[in-house]
């Protein structure tokens, strides 16, 4: 045990905490400074977590098998970039993206169909709501059995997982346009499709983006978990489950860091598009200050 390192961690933590407490109490007039503080405070919190992690694992001599310090994980990322890239390609570019687009678009199309045919809506929606609460990842072994070990089976799992949130959200989004707006469209003598494209789909956009955000995480989870049931010898899920068995925990953490980065970027891209598309929505307008 190294008390000095622990002390450094403690001092850093208290210092960062005090600084954050100080910063959030500032009330500057300048908008740029407000924005900078809003950005800096969470970043400092994140850095503090990393510092505490680093110094506590080193200070208490925690076995690297249990929890490697961040510096060790970073070193591992640098030396195994090619492995990480290959896994990223297999899992993210092939399984997640393809499955995400297929699942979301089919959910969207079925939602439009359900909107057009009230019978379908009344029949499908309760089932869709029910299925959304089910542990759908469980279909992974079945999909692996049907579609083989390669990425096709992961795509299938991702499609099944992303379909229902999209369906349920789009259907409730299509109900979001108010009666008054629909009446206005009627006075314009607009057809079903005209109303759909110029009024109801834009009104449904916040709901659709909500589904896209939920699905971005679900897709990654689905693809990784499906790989636990069988893969060719490449892929993030495969790497995680085998390297854990070989006690290469630092490589596992490196893989998780990549997955986290990919997940966050995926989510961030969708959030950015949402801000551009639903610029009229109160939550976005409020964000602009």
């Amino acid at each position, binding site marked *: 045990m190294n008390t000095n390192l622990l002390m450094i961690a403690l001092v850093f933590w208290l210092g960062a905490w005090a600084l954050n407490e100080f910063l959030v109490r500032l009330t500057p007039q300048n908008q740029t400074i407000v924005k900078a503080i809003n950005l800096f*405070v969470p970043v400092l919190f994140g850095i503090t977590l990393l510092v505490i992690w680093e110094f506590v694992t080193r200070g208490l001599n925690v076995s690297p098998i249990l929890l490697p310090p961040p510096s060790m994980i970073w070193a591992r990322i640098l030396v195994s970039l090619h492995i990480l890239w290959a896994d990223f390609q297999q899992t993210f570019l092939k399984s997640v993206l393809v499955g995400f687009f297929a699942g979301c678009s089919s959910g969207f199309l079925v939602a439009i169909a359900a909107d057009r045919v009230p019978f379908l809506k009344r*029949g499908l929606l309760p089932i869709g709501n029910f299925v959304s609460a089910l542990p759908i990842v*469980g279909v992974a072994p079945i999909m692996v059995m049907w579609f083989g070990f390669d990425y096709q089976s992961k795509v299938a799992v991702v499609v099944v997982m992303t379909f229902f949130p999209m369906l349920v959200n789009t259907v409730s989004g299509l109900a979001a346009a108010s009666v008054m707006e629909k009446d206005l469209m009627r006075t314009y003598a607009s057809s079903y499709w005209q109303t759909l494209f110029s009024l109801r789909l834009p009104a449904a956009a916040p709901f659709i983006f909500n589904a896209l955000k939920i699905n971005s995480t679900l897709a990654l989870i689905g693809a990784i*978990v499906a790989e*636990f049931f069988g893969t060719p010898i490449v892929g993030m899920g495969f790497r995680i489950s085998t390297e854990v068995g070989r006690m290469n925990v630092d490589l596992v953490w490196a893989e*998780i860091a990549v997955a986290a980065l990919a997940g966050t970027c995926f989510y961030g891209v969708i959030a950015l598009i949402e801000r551009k598309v639903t610029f009229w929505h109160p939550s976005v307008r409020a964000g602009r200050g």
Partner: protein
Amino acid sequence: MYERMMNSKLMQGKALPVLIIIGLILVFWYVMAVKLNTPWQLGVYERAGVTEWTNSQFINDTLNQDRPVLPSVHQVAEEIWNTTVLKSPTSRRSLIYHTWITLSATLLGFTIGTILGISLAIGIVHSRAMDKSMMPWIIASQTIPILAIAPMIIVVLNAIGISGVLPKALISTYLSFFPIAVGMVKGFRSPEQIQLDLMHTYAASKSQVFSTLRWFAAMPYLFTSMKIAISISLVGAIVGELPTGAVAGLGARLLSGSYYGQTVQIWSALFMAAALAATLVSLVGVVEKIVTRKMGVRT
């Protein structure tokens, strides 16, 4: 005339469309089962030297294979019946035993997650520094495919001698604290300014405002979040069972089923998991109804 009215009323409601769609799914299922199991059945006939068969015999055989590509619904139902009612619940071959293993991890993880989520929300509502510094990370933590960490948590905790229900529960905890924390932050902030002002005129302290106003205002949010949280803690517990090498639990049933090609076993575990999820969510719904009625909400 009367009958027609009944019909149209039924069609207006939800029950009949849902039943019809479920019926359609069942029909589709059987058609797919026959279709997907046909190649194997033809192989079986060829090896047995059977050259002539009637259609009904063929369909009957495809629907009752030992290891079908897609088991028929009645096979799954039979398997569930055999492994729940006919086996003693303590036997390792009983589905109830495996369900209980998963359920205990789910409930433990859900409980810890709920407590953690509520305490985080209390902190965030009362401290600006916590709000500003932690909220972005709580949201970012959910864009991380956390289930990827599941095998590591299990194996690593196993290595230092912690095994059994706790590691799985920790995964459920991680998954379930998020909806609770976010929902409760919203809920604790839901009292309107006029209500807060009233508390202010009573000279109520922060903790009094919390225990008499904020807590109750947050109840509807709590139950909505708990419904989401309990279904994802079940997912967490199931996935947490995968890397333990198929010992016990619904996840282990899925894994061993996929190792040995026991499709009927996979499907029965899946149906059990679905039933469990539905039961848990509706249980939360029942508690919600009781609590909101106690709080004086009339519906």
